[in-house]
C-alpha cells in the first residue's frame, strides 16, 4: 500500500517546456490512468516516476520519501515495446528478477533455491496464462503474450508501484479485454499502486480508480514551446473500485462486481 506524491513537477527539454505545475496526491492502492493527446508528456511523467528521467523542478515522494536517483525493484515497469529480454526464454525472463535479487555476484541460482524460484516463476506464468510457453523465446510470442510475459516479469518482484506505458496499445480488443481482467485481479491481489498511460478512454475508465488528463493550457503555435501540459482533468471513477474491494474483505459481503 503505497502513496505517491508529486509536488510542483516541471519538466523542460532545453527551451521546450513539456510539463508544468504537476501536483498530485495519489492514495495507496490507487489505479491512476493517465490520458492526453500525443506528445503531451505522459511518458515523460512516467519516466520521471521510474527515475529514468529527472524533473527540472519539483519533487516526487513515495511513502513520504524522496524518489531514489536510480530505478529500483520497488517500481516495476511495462512498456509498449522492448519490455522483455529477447535472449531469455519465457521462463528465464521471469526467473531473472529472482536470480538477480538472491544471487548478487553469480546471478544464477542452484539447488533448492533454484527450485523454489522456478516454482514461483511458473506459478506466476500460469497466472498470466503462459504456462504452456515456458521454453519459448519472446520473438516466438504474439504481442499479447509478450505483454503478459512483461507483466509477469514485473510482478514477480512484488513492486509497490507498477508503471505501465501504453501496455495494451497494440493488442486486439479480445485479448485486451482478457488482459484487463487479469490486470484488475493482480492489482487487487497485490495492493500495489498503478500508473497506466493509455490512449483508450474506455480502458482508462474501466481499469482506473482515477483518471488524469494532461493537456496544454495554451494552444497558440507560438506559445506551444513556452507552456507545458498541466493536469486538465482529475476524475475519481465511480463506483469506487477500491472501497468496493475493501468491503469484500471486511464484511465478506456477497460478490457484487462493480463492472
Amino acid at each position, binding site marked *: 500500500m503505497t502513496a505517491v506524491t508529486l509536488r510542483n513537477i516541471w519538466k523542460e527539454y532545453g527551451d521546450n517546456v513539456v510539463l508544468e505545475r504537476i501536483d498530485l496526491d495519489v492514495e495507496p492502492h490507487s489505479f491512476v490512468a493517465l490520458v492526453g493527446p500525443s506528445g503531451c508528456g505522459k511518458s515523460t511523467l512516467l519516466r520521471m516516476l521510474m527515475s529514468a528521467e529527472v524533473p527540472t523542478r519539483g519533487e516526487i515522494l513515495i511513502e513520504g520519501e524522496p524518489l531514489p536517483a536510480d530505478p*529500483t525493484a520497488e517500481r*516495476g515497469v511495462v512498456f509498449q515495446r522492448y519490455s522483455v*529480454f529477447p535472449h531469455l526464454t519465457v521462463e528465464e525472463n521471469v526467473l531473472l528478477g529472482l536470480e538477480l535479487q538472491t544471487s548478487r555476484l553469480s546471478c544464477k541460482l542452484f539447488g533448492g533455491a533454484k527450485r523454489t524460484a522456478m516454482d514461483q516463476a511458473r506459478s506466476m506464468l500460469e497466472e498470466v496464462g503462459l504456462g504452456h510457453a515456458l521454453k519459448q523465446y519472446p*520473438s516466438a510470442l504474439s504481442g499479447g503474450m509478450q505483454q503478459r510475459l512483461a507483466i509477469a516479469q514485473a510482478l514477480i518482484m512484488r513492486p509497490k508501484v507498477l508503471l505501465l506505458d501504453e501496455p495494451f496499445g497494440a493488442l486486439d480488443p479480445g485479448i485486451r479485454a482478457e488482459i484487463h481482467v487479469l490486470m484488475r485481479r493482480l492489482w487487487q491481489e497485490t495492493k500495489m499502486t498503478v500508473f497506466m498511460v493509455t490512449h483508450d478512454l474506455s480502458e482508462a475508465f474501466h481499469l482506473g480508480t482515477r483518471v488524469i488528463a494532461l493537456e496544454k493550457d495554451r494552444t497558440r503555435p507560438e506559445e506551444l514551446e513556452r507552456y507545458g501540459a498541466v493536469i486538465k482533468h482529475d476524475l475519481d471513477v465511480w463506483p469506487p473500485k477500491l472501497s468496493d474491494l475493501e468491503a469484500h474483505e471486511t464484511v465478506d459481503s456477497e460478490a457484487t462486481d462493480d463492472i
Partner: protein
Amino acid sequence: MRQRLINRRPERRVGVFLAALPFVLLLIAYSLGSDARLAENPSDKLLPSFSSIGDAIERMAFTENKRTGEILLWVDTSASLIRFVSGLLIATLVGGFFGIITGLLPYMRASLGTFFSVLSVIPPLAILPILFIVLGLGETSKIALIVLGIAPFIIRDMILRVEEIPSELMVKAQTLGASTWQIAWRVVVPQMLPRLIDALRLSLGAAWLFLIAAEAIASQSGLGYRIFLMRRYLSMDVILPYVAWITFLAFFIDWCLLKLQQKAFPWFAASRSG
C-alpha cells in the same frame, strides 16, 4: 499480371545452377586463355595449364619433403592458422571487453571513446615496422599486427551495439533490482555475444590481409610466405592453388562462425528479423 522482378525468386535447383555459373565461367575463361598462351609459347608461366597446376598440387600437398619428411602445404597452413586464430581470439577478447565496458559506462566512454576512435584510424601496416623492432620477427609481432588491425574495429562496433540496446531494456533490468555488474553480465554480455560474432566475421578479410602481409615481409613459413617466395620463380602453378586454398579457408572460417552463431544463439536471428 506479371510479377515484379524484386518478387521473383529462383527455385532451388535453378538457384544452385546460378550460384555455380560465375565459377564455371571463370574456369572456362581461364582455360581458354591458358591454352592460347601455351600454344604460342609452351614455356609460358603466366597462365599454367590445369595439368601443371595438378602437378604442383601433388608436389606441395601430397608429397613429403625428402629431407624433412614434411608436407609443405600442411606446414604452411598450420603455421598460418595458428597465427590467424590466436590473433582473432585475442582481438575478440580485447575488443569485446573494452567495447562492452566503454559502451556501457559513461565514464569509460568519456575517457576512452575518443582514444579508440583515434586508434582505429592508424593504418596498422604503418606500425608493422615498430612491431618488428619492439617484438622481434617471431610469431608475436605477426599476431600483434592482426590484433592491432582488427581490435579497434571490433571495439567501435561493440560500443555502437551496446548503445543500440533499447533504453527500455536497461530501465527494465534496473527495475528487476539489477546492479551494474548484473546488468553487464546478464543483459549486455549475452546480447553482445552474437553481435561480436558478426563483428568478427566482418573483420575476417582484414585479418587475412594483415596475416599475409606480415608473413610476406618476415617469416620462414606460412601461406603468405610461400606465395611471396614462389613469386620470385614466377611459379603461378603453385601460387594459384595457394590462393584458392586461402580463399577456401577464409570462406570456411566465416561459415563456421555463422553456424556457431545460429547454434549458440537461436534467439538472435529471430529477434533481428522481427
